[in-house]
């Protein structure tokens, strides 16, 4: 490992959606939000609630939210005021971007960059021992920084006008349902919602609560209760599992990662809807993806869209030829890899996905595309299976603790090396992992082309009622056993 994975800096106690305190907090916020007060006061209440939510983790880091609001709000306001001063606007954009990324890099990669500097200076024979940064990585830092940056860039591009109210902008940057792990909002979506009073209708409240329940079920029951025990055993760095266990464990991790992250996003959508706000969906049946272009249109949609609009397209996108586009795709995927942390394993994860995307496009441009088999169910099934298998290979790098660990797992996966006494998951664990992932896959395939709200309208109300009851009972029973923080808070 060139850079250590920054888990040691991850806080161990966050107010998460799957906690009693959050449920009480949410109830209080919903009650206050429903009081017939002027809209400005209700927005102010939401802002205070958002700051309190973040302060529950670490009160001093609320300053980061305030500073981000001041920096990006101030920059955008000056840009709006000097609309005809192109050079000034560009300079301001650069300064704001560098400051935003500087804060992100300092907190997220500070120790890794200092470690790299130490390593380079050591090789050059220069005696330099950098101090170790001991501050915690602010949770959700990249999410709200990306939101704030998108606002400034959009104002620069004149896609949106500067926010008319500091309160609206502050709420946009710190809106608590999405603050810790997205979905990454855009000012163009959110700020217009702040202009008129928002209060959920009965249907929106009912649907919002249903989404919150679904998200909790994904997180508490599927990710933490059923899949996490399996992945913990397989990805223990001191264990060498056999091939079947690695494949199953990686599949379980894919399911856990999805349920954890999509669970948070679904909760966020539900909570926002209960408050009368609409936030974008972040996942759309990714386990039913056929090919990698399809996958990245379904997985962490708001991050990929952010990367497309603020990295890929400014680099030239697809307009300068295939080779240039391939390089751009690879840059974006490497950045997505590094977004997870400064480790070679994440970099390889991004590199593999970049390679998959480029390889897929090459295949699609070749004569193979014309074969009839791809339009038939068996061909689609084959492509789906290939997508899953290649994804799992990339996931090995994602969840391995080091490159050595990843290679060891891969060599066991493909039977390249053998262990005298390999670890084998119990039959029960194998069964749980396969059944849960299989059911998830089937559910995704069934609603592959429909979003959740559309899929729900296709079933009778009593089916939804039974589903909600079963999920609630499962949440109650499984929440007794474990409570883990969401994996993506650390990003």
């Amino acid at each position: 490992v060139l850079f250590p994975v920054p888990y040691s800096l991850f806080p161990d106690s966050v107010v998460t959606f799957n906690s009693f305190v959050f449920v009480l907090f949410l109830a209080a916020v919903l009650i206050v939000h429903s009081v017939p007060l002027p809209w400005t006061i209700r927005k102010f209440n939401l802002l205070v609630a958002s700051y309190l939510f973040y302060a529950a983790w670490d009160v001093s880091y609320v300053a980061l939210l305030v500073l981000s609001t001041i920096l990006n709000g101030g920059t955008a306001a000056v840009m709006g005021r000097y609309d005809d001063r192109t050079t000034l606007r560009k300079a301001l954009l650069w300064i704001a971007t560098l400051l935003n990324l500087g804060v992100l890099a300092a907190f997220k990669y500070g120790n890794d960059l200092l470690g790299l500097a130490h390593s380079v200076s050591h090789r050059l024979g220069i005696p330099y021992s950098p101090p170790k940064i001991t501050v915690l990585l602010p949770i959700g830092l990249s999410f709200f920084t990306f939101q704030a940056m998108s606002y400034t860039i959009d104002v620069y591009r004149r896609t949106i006008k500067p926010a008319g109210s500091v309160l609206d902008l502050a709420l946009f940057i710190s809106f608590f349902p999405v603050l810790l792990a997205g979905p990454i909002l855009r000012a163009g979506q959110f700020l217009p919602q702040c202009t008129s009073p928002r209060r959920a209708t009965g249907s929106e409240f009912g649907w919002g609560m249903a989404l919150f329940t679904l998200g909790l079920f994904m997180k508490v029951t599927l990710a933490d209760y059923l899949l996490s025990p399996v992945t913990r055993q397989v990805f223990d760095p001191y264990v060498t599992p056999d091939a079947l266990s690695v494949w199953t464990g990686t599949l379980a991790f894919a399911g856990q990662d999805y349920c954890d992250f999509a669970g948070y996003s679904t909760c966020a959508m539900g909570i926002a809807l209960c408050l009368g706000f609409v936030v974008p969906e972040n996942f759309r049946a990714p386990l039913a993806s056929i090919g990698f272009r399809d996958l990245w249109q379904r997985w962490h949609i708001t991050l990929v869209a952010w990367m497309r609009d603020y990295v890929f397209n400014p680099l030239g996108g697809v307009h300068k030829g295939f080779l240039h586009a391939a390089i751009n795709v690879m840059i974006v995927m490497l950045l997505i890899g590094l977004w997870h942390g400064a480790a070679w394993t994440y970099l390889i994860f991004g590199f593999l996905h970049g390679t998959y995307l480029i390889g897929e496009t090459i295949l699609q441009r070749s004569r193979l595309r014309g074969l009839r088999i791809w339009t038939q169910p068996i061909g689609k099934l084959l492509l789906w299976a290939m997508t899953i298998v290649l994804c799992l290979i990339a996931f090995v790098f994602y969840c391995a603790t080091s490159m050595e660990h990843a290679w060891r797992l891969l060599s066991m996966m493909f039977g390249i090396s053998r262990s005298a006494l390999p670890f084998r998951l119990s039959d029960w664990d194998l069964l749980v992992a396969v059944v849960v992932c299989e059911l998830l896959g089937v559910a995704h395939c069934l609603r592959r082309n429909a979003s959740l709200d559309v899929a729900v309208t296709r079933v009778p109300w009593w089916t939804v009622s039974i589903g909600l009851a079963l999920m609630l009972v499962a949440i109650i029973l499984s929440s007794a056993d474990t409570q883990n923080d969401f994996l993506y808070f650390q990003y």
Partner: protein
Amino acid sequence: MPLVIAPKTTAPQRVWRAPAMPWLLTWLPALLVVLASVGGLEAFWRAGGVHATVSADNKDLWYFWRNQVDRPDGRVVVLLGTSRIKCDIALAVLEREVDLHAVQLGIDGITSPIGILRDLAADPCFKGVVLCEMFVPLIDRSRWNDCDGFVSYRPARLAGYLDSVLTLRAHSTFAFLDRRLGPLSIAKAWSDSGTWQLPAATLDRCDFNRSLGFQPRAIALDAQLQKQPTPRDRFALSRAVPFEQLASACDEIDSLVCVIRSRGGGVVFIHLPSSGDQLADEETAFPRTQYWNRFIKRMSAPCIHFRDVAALRAYTPSDGVHLSEDDIRGFTTALAKEVERVGFGRCVVATNTQRS
């Protein structure tokens, strides 16, 4: 086919709409089913003899109760010791008998309570009464730091602490929240052995007030454990040292007692009941004349040995060290009377109960 990621057709601006559905009609039956399910489950487990329980020595819970001892009026009695004091004394009965707020700060295992006594002595706000379980190995200075992990514990974050306390409160109220009774645990045990029976461990319990309770089946299991070659308590007996080596520790303990008493508080040392092999081993390793009697002579606080009080002697732990739930009410009443008789260990009256 252009090489793109996330083409604009999947723009995140897609608006979620609430599906047209009678949501009130959807939610009401769902909530009723949930209430009926968990209620039925709770009734089922309770009928099977399961009690709601929390993990015995949760640090957040200990911290919660530690914060309850500082009362300006000093109307609090604090219990220190091992699993014996957590098991043998019914807090509700004690509160009723002595008319003081009772707080259980005992910690399972052979953990010396002296570290906690030192903490209370160093706390200028503490003016209450301490009932401190005493058993010769617990005097040993090398054990005084056993409870440091609890004494120095401070929750990292308020929200996490509140959540932990709320969770513990829920776990102490509902038996179905016991993790040993989770669907996965049951299914796993069933798949391993082809059958499933209630784990014996679910028959003991730890309440929110940190009291332990053993039902007869759990006591029987514990009795078996005590008879094994390396029983939990007896490992301590193997480290018996001459009393002379404990003398300075005794003096230091007494200085802690004096500090608490100087603030109007009180301390009473109690040797809780043992029986059978356990009692015989204790007597062999620490002959009373050489240890307990010399210990109480060095203490300014009253010391109660269960064998000196007829009402306490009547209770026999069936596993050698813990009283069963049937006995603890009577035992607590008898002990409370004895504690009252010695004036709660406050300065006014201080009479050791050693009569032999």
